[in-house]
């Protein structure tokens, strides 16, 4: 447990873990004071302190308000490393490499789909593969194509007719991380990924049909193309078995490598390699391949979502007008240029269960959004709401342009199952106006709202800390889960 970790208040939304022992820097957690007792119930604060041991860390070991216990790095953790002296750690990315989320906006209002949610959800559930072993018969990936997916990411998907070239500007990194080496990806990882491109996956992955319930910042909302009651689609998925296998193999490979480089760790799951080492470069190259797989996955699924809506609603593409607002990564390590303590630096920023949140005028955000900042998408649990925020200059100063990624779990899956005993979760959701359909027996039950922190609380911390600002709140109408 993290009860022995000392936490000092900096202000109402920032708490410091002082540098102690072998920590090379301090920890900095963005959280409200009343959330700290929950944090002390698991090892998340200890993990923030552990990350601070890693060599070449620049700035503090950061944690977002949705922080919870992970492997090595906490989920909700951000850490940046100097390109010369720093390391890369698969645990700082996570098993689901480039698990991420995208938001699509439509030309429809909530009233346009009133009474048709069940039909839409059923059709999405039919058309988007989500259960174990499910895949579409009309979509087959040859080994040559798989290599292109891993190299080109969403660009490959667009070249095959999934979405349009305009989408790429609205995806983090243009939907493709450079430097991927598919030839370094193991046969086992390729085997696991072979039939999984274009599938949702299980656990907390979902497709959500919702609408814009509240607009907080009308100017930015308009800039993002959002309006009150607008129908939206959110897609949350990642690199599937391919990414999981790559991470698994990387962790196994790097545990002894960490020792060879003389790096002392409090937790073997922080295993790492110097960024300049062959092992570090190898991990980055295969991680990029997995990230590109995930970008392609979300691009393909979005296309099928669009087709499904056109079929069910019997409307033309230009009337549906489904357009990508933004697509971003939750689990990634990337080279980025940041200014830290007055000095421009090239850093390898690890975000594990955290989101990029670049402020206004950054060259890496779409031209149309530059005066506002980068959209930050924060999905909540399936029963409450999700948020759209915008990155701020403060995020660039304090968190290497990073923010939270979601609600963060509060309750274990077993506790959730126990809490839901005797209840019909699907019926409860329907009574609240949300239609849910899932592939896995226990998935819906495990994903009940009580199992998650209230995302409004998480977002409020980020907003009040000035890291990202609220733009709009979305409410779910229909959800499909794997």
């Amino acid at each position, binding site marked *: 447990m993290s009860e022995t970790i000392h936490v000092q208040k900096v202000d109402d939304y920032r708490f410091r873990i002082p540098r102690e022992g072998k920590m090379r820097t301090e920890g900095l957690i963005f959280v409200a004071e009343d959330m700290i007792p929950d944090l002390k119930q698991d090892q998340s604060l200890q993990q923030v302190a552990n990350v601070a041991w890693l060599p070449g860390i620049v700035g503090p070991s950061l944690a977002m308000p949705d922080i919870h216990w992970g492997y090595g790095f906490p989920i909700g953790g951000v850490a940046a490393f100097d390109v010369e002296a720093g390391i890369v750690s698969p645990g700082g990315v996570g098993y689901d490499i480039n698990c991420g989320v995208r938001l699509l906006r439509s030309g429809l209002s909530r009233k346009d789909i009133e009474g048709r949610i069940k039909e839409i959800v059923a059709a999405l559930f039919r058309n988007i593969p989500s259960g174990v072993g499910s895949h579409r018969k009309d979509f087959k990936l040859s080994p040559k194509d798989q290599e292109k997916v891993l190299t080109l990411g969403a660009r490959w998907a667009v070249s095959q007719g999934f979405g349009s070239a305009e989408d790429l500007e609205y995806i983090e990194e243009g939907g493709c991380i450079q430097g991927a080496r598919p030839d370094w990806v193991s046969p086992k990882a390729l085997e696991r990924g072979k039939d999984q491109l274009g599938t949702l996956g299980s*656990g907390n992955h979902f497709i959500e049909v919702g609408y814009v319930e509240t607009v907080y910042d009308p100017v930015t909302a308009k800039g993002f193309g959002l309006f009150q009651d607008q129908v939206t689609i959110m897609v949350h998925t990642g690199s599937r*078995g391919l990414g*999981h296998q790559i991470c698994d193999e990387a962790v196994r490979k790097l545990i002894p490598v960490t020792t060879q480089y003389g790096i002392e760790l409090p937790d073997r799951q922080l295993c790492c390699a110097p960024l300049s080492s062959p092992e570090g470069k190898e991990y980055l190259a295969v991680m990029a391949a997995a990230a590109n797989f995930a970008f392609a996955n979300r691009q393909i699924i979005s296309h099928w979502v669009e087709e499904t809506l056109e079929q069910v609603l019997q409307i033309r593409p230009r009337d549906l007008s489904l357009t990508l607002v933004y697509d971003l990564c939750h689990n990634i390590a990337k080279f980025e240029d940041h200014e830290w303590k007055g000095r421009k630096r090239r850093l390898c920023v690890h975000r594990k269960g955290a989101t990029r949140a670049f402020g206004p005028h950054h060259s890496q955000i779409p031209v149309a959004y530059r005066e506002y900042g980068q959209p930050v998408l924060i999905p909540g649990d399936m029963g409450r709401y999700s948020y759209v925020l915008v990155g701020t200059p403060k995020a660039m100063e304090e968190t290497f342009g990073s923010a939270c990624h979601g609600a963060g779990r509060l309750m274990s*899956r*077993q506790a959730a199952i126990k809490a839901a005993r005797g209840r019909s979760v699907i019926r409860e959701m329907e009574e609240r106006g949300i239609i849910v359909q899932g592939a896995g027996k226990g998935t819906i039950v495990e994903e009940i709202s009580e199992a998650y922190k209230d995302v409004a609380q998480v977002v409020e911390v980020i907003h009040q800390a000035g890291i990202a600002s609220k733009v709009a709140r979305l409410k779910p109408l229909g959800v499909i889960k794997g």
Partner: protein
Amino acid sequence: MGFFLSVTESRPFPTICLANSLGYFYNLLSGCNGHYSACCSGDREMGKREKRIWKAGPFQRGEPPIRESYRIISHTADLGMEVQGNDLKDLFAQAGRAFFDLMIGLGCIKTKKEERIGVSAPDTEALLVAWLSELLFLFETRRLVFSDFNICRLNPESLEAVGLGETYDPQKHPVRQVFKAVTYHQLALWEEKGVWKARVVFDL
């Protein structure tokens, strides 16, 4: 997500097992803990003797309920489990059974086919992760589900086994949860009063 597997042995250590010079890791070069006729070659006699010994114990494999062999440990985002077995080989076998029990439920899985499985790792704890990872790989890529295992050979860094199971059928095998990976989080393997225990966490 994670499962902790802890194996507990409540009977004397089987005398047919050869303890290696490292002490509590024993090298069963020719030992077969099988209950099956289709065991590793050369091990049939030993298997029969072992079967007689094992029938006396409380943790005989193949007998329900599997849940007496493992318990779930709470973890915020994932699943932990502790499993117990009679010896190190049984630990690995019970770990595999618990893996499929948690994912699908052993009651649905028939033993229609056999699959030889071999893994290696730098140490025995990592071997447990490698073993369960291989089962996950076989499930995802070959759609194989298993309800029992014969661990034919086990040494500190490698394992050979035969899995008994069948091909996954969504109609017959409703999935309770799908694991993304087997992690090293809180991984532990230890012997306690002659009982083998292990703890593993799975990423969900």
